[in-house]
């Protein structure tokens, strides 16, 4: 089993280092091998919405800046955990660069989910569990609710947690989340 930990190098605080260490220990204790990835400023280009990853090189972004390695690692993992600075109640820029470029991992076609909402269909039979751990200085309840809604409201197979300075609590919450690949609609 593999856990892939993605973090934002632009917000490399001492607390982030603590979290990386603690979460790595947690996943190892649960029998996972861990792979860490820190995304630095200007390391990735922004998705330019060309959709070539759907109609030219299906499943792969045409920009060769390291996103292929990230997407490959994501798709080879059982769990992908994002240590995500919360900015305006949303993902920080570096994390969002990676999230936007997750696009090759799905298909262009529209599907209608049971609740009537539209989504793109899955490219793969199953996907890693995705856990977003938001952190920031004195996040307001509005920011936390928005971060939760942005991550969970429109997608399946996603867990959203927040760092409240208590490592044991955070690890317990992660332990209660699905830590395995899951099939079905995105």
């Amino acid at each position, binding site marked *: 089993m593999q856990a892939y930990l993605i973090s934002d190098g632009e917000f490399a605080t001492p607390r982030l280092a603590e979290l990386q260490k603690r979460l790595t220990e947690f996943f190892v204790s649960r029998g996972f091998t861990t792979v860490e990835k820190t995304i630095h400023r200007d390391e990735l280009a922004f998705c330019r919405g060309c959709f070539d990853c759907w109609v030219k090189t299906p499943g792969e972004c045409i920009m060769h800046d390291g996103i292929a390695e990230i997407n490959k690692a994501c798709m080879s993992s059982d769990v992908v955990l994002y240590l995500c600075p919360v900015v*305006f109640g949303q993902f920080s820029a570096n994390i969002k660069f990676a999230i936007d470029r997750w696009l090759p991992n799905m298909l262009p076609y529209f599907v209608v989910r049971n609740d009537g909402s539209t989504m793109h269909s899955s490219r793969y039979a199953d996907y890693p569990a995705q856990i977003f751990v938001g952190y920031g200085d004195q996040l307001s309840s509005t920011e936390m609710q928005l971060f939760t809604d*942005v991550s969970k409201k429109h997608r399946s197979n996603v867990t959203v947690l927040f760092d409240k300075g208590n490592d044991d609590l955070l690890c317990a919450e992660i332990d209660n989340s699905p830590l395995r690949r899951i099939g079905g609609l995105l």
Partner: protein
Amino acid sequence: MSQSNSKIVLVSASPKVDQTMSVSSLFANYAREKLHSSELTVEIIAVRNVLLHHETDHAYEALQNADAIMFIFPLYFFCLPAMLTRFLQDFVAKYPTAQQHNKVYAIVNCGFPEAGINLEAMRGLECFSKQTMRTFLGGVMVGCGGMLISAKDAPFMRPVFEKIDHLLERMIRDCKSDQPEKALTEQVEPKFPRNLYFFSGNAGWNASARKNGLRIRDIKRKPYHM
């Protein structure tokens, strides 16, 4: 009464290379034309160009000096596209708060038919506004973005432009008044059958793939299959 030459900045934030195929660019140009008739100074900031050509200094100064800002952008993964997040994150690092009373509006479009899914992006801009001491006054959430360029003149597209017209008219009134009207976020979709939108969208992907020399089944390749 506010001064009649209020400065409005339209932030056009589509990451697309070909901006002629960008809905945000279409809306930004449309808004500039509509606003031009009144006594306002209107400037478009194209975020993609600004970032790629390292011209953020001028853009950030324009935002900081604006009386009103309208963000116009596509929804990416249910929130702001990374490009716009980068632009705003750096803007706030340089100018943490507004230096004057500053109004914020937005037009957000998405490729899915449901315009309501743009709401979290709107709320993100509300967070940005609150953090930087600006006043968020809402905007328009648009669905079916995939057909907005090709069918912009079609009769079924009229409701979209009517909503945008209402927003622009409100923006003008706000700029001329000491007290802006109440914030309002509306949603609109072209009057077009959803199934037909899906059908034409899906057919379009297949046609694009064929144009690139692929077979339909190639679209479903799994390069990272475990």
